[in-house]
């Protein structure tokens, strides 16, 4: 199963450090690479709480690489 991960690439999220999250997602260990599909979206309208990342249908505010990885793990576990 594949978990869609969408990183907001809007102005605020870009400036609030979405790049760090993208880097981590692109360099995930091999076991995760095949289970996630990374993409971008435009502004979620929650700019003040960025960076925002949507993991499946869960929107993560003030996202950090750790928070995003945690959410991906949870998602994978729940769908198993």
């Amino acid at each position, binding site marked *: 199963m594949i978990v869609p991960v969408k990183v907001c*690439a*809007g*102005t*605020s999220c*870009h*400036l609030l450090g979405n*790049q760090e999250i*993208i880097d981590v997602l692109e360099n995930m260990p091999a076991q995760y690479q095949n289970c996630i599909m990374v*993409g*971008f*979206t*435009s*502004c979620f*309208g929650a*700019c*003040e709480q*960025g960076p925002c990342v949507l993991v499946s249908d869960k929107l993560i505010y003030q996202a950090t690489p750790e928070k995003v990885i945690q959410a991906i793990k949870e998602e994978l576990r729940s769908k198993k």
Partner: protein
Amino acid sequence: MVMTLKIDVGVASLSKYKEEVCGDTVEIVKTEQSTTIVFSDGLGSGIKASILSILTTKIASGLLKRNVSLEQVFETIADTLPTCKVRNLAYSTLSILRLYPDGRCHLIEYDNPSLLWIRKKKPLSIKRKKRQIAGKETMEAQFFIEPGDLLVMISDGVINAGVGGLFRLGLGYEGVINSVLDWAIEYDDSQPVAERVTDVVDACYLGRPGDDSTSIIITARNPRTAILLTGPPANPKHDQDLVSKFLEYKNVRRIICGGATGNLVAREMGREIKTNLKYEDPSVPPTATIKGIDLVTEGILTLNKCLTKLKNIDQDKKTEPLFDGATLLCQSLMKADRIIFLVGTAVNPAHEEFMNSLQLLTRMEVIKRLQTLLTEMDKEVVIEKY
């Protein structure tokens, strides 16, 4: 209605093998009333030919800028420039083509290969009349061009390319027309077509041009309009009106700058907005696509970056071959003759904090500066606030 044609001129030259300078010279004189192309090929090659042709075109363009008629310009040059005593030849050739915004063309040629006229991939013949001006036998023509027409002015080096080598009789008029047509479908600007023609010429000469060779491509087209929507309106009640306004123009290039603006248009159009998968430039957020919209970029950062790029654009108006939103935006603005900015004035509170610290200009400020720059480039710019 008076047709207002836009004239694009592309020029490319090759110097004769082992010569440092080209003996062909082209001058383009643009005024509000007309575009005039002056082309001269100096006798022989090298520095002497170059000086002669520069002298001829400079005199001509100087006079043309003072609104002197084509005939008088010709007369002055014919009287001023001596002919070579030994060979009884004029020291340089001269073609002057004046194009008016209504499509009217006035051509006077002296000793150059004939101007070519192409419409819908077919050559048209230009009815020329012999005319004596200051004792010189010139060819004169008056004709009307339409949007989509192509005119090709060339030096004899182009016609003779490959003579006695690759071709018995050289590239010839037909060869020139074919190579122009080959490339004209690929580009919508004149400059790259002119360059490709001289590439062909260079190849015909096997990389060692036997003569200075110049190709001038002139295209006529309708003015291009771009409409750029950026920022949601101050009052969300106007969302729909603003989007309809943005969509109502026909035959325009539609550009959206701003994530929230993109979402707004996608919502109103009932279409999906897809953000592209790649950061082409780490400092410019990726572009997006909405069916029916030509370009969708992020807002503030892209606009600021585009302004910087436009300020630093080089003389021949080429942007670097990059694909980030700011470069694409810059290219779209450069291509347009008329630009309508629809600027929404809603403020995103999340932006305010970093605007100062990053020394970014506000949306309105960027647009105003873009207006100044674009107006200097002879474009018509309209700003509407919402």
